[in-house]
């Protein structure tokens, strides 16, 4: 029931990512020990918003 990828982000950042629809496994952390910070998530969210919507995945 868990992801195999180790995500490093404090709970508050994880919550924000959920709210903004950011997939944390795809975010590069700039915080201590490479952890993802709130700013990292906001930046990723901004890029998501700027980028064109992804093509539908093949079934």
């Amino acid at each position: 029931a868990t992801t195999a990828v180790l995500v490093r982000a404090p709970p508050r950042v994880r919550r924000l990512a959920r709210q903004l629809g950011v997939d944390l496994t795809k975010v590069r952390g700039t915080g201590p020990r490479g952890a993802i910070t709130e700013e990292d998530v906001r930046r990723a969210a901004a890029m998501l918003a700027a980028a064109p919507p992804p093509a539908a995945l093949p079934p």
Partner: protein
Amino acid sequence: MPVMNMVEALNTALREEMKRDKRVVVLGEDVGRRGGVFLVTEGLIDEFGEERVIDTPLTEMGIVAFAIGMAMYGLRPVAEIQFIDFIYEAFDQIVNNAAWYRFRSGGMYSVPLVIRGPCCGGIRGGMHHSQSNESYFIHTPGLYVVMPSTPYDAKGLLKSSIRSDDAVIFLEPKSIYRTIREDVPEEDYTVPLGQARVVQEGSDVTLVTWGAMVHLAKEAAELLRDKRGWSVEIIDLRTLQPWDKDIVVKSLEKTGRLVIVHEARRILGPGAEIAAYISENHIELLRGPVKRVASYDTPYPLAHEKLYLPNIAKIYRAVSDVMQW
């Protein structure tokens, strides 16, 4: 309004409470003619006599147990422990009886006792005249644990402690006994137990502290503002148990960053509970780690106390760390 240092404020509080209430008695080693080694009880024996200002034989166990008996019978004893470092002989009596007699007796007996004494370091007192051992008491239900950081609070908190129906451990940071002077009203006032105070407002990081560290925190905050432009909110807990969680949570809602500064050692120091409580109940408020600036987990070293205790550099580092998040 007279200007007082903490020793004078405490002396005044004792004097006023003894005048107000015949049940208040003072006891301990050298509290009589000597007036206590820091002179907190100075002059009381002249005003109230030997039966109310009691020089005891040299045993903390005896002092505390004797005071428990007095309190159960209806007095309001204020027991001085000459240095809080010497309290351990009394630990059995404090835990089992001062803290728990109400519970053990189904509420039939209470122990309205104040155990007070100089605590904490910074005056080259060495291992046995410098300890910050509040954790042992915070972990013991039934006790209030109090530590003032200013003369004003010292007087108001000691009065509340004497009037409380529970046993109070009242810790006096001796390094600021005489270094801080401020206006202290002559009239009767109290500072309620369990309520913290915002020493200064800030928006970037919340610094929770108490006792002499409040003043260190203020210095550090200034440096952080000047050097880094960060705005530090400082909270003085004043009562360490029960601690004022609401004021801390409210501050964290603003800052999202928490640093705790205390003279007690780090491992199971009071900061451990604050950090644990926040991460248990309000972790979503945190942008990053909860940092503790505490003494190291060694006995108190006479020769290097300035490196052992929290200092400005350590606070500076801890705040810088949490500001990375």
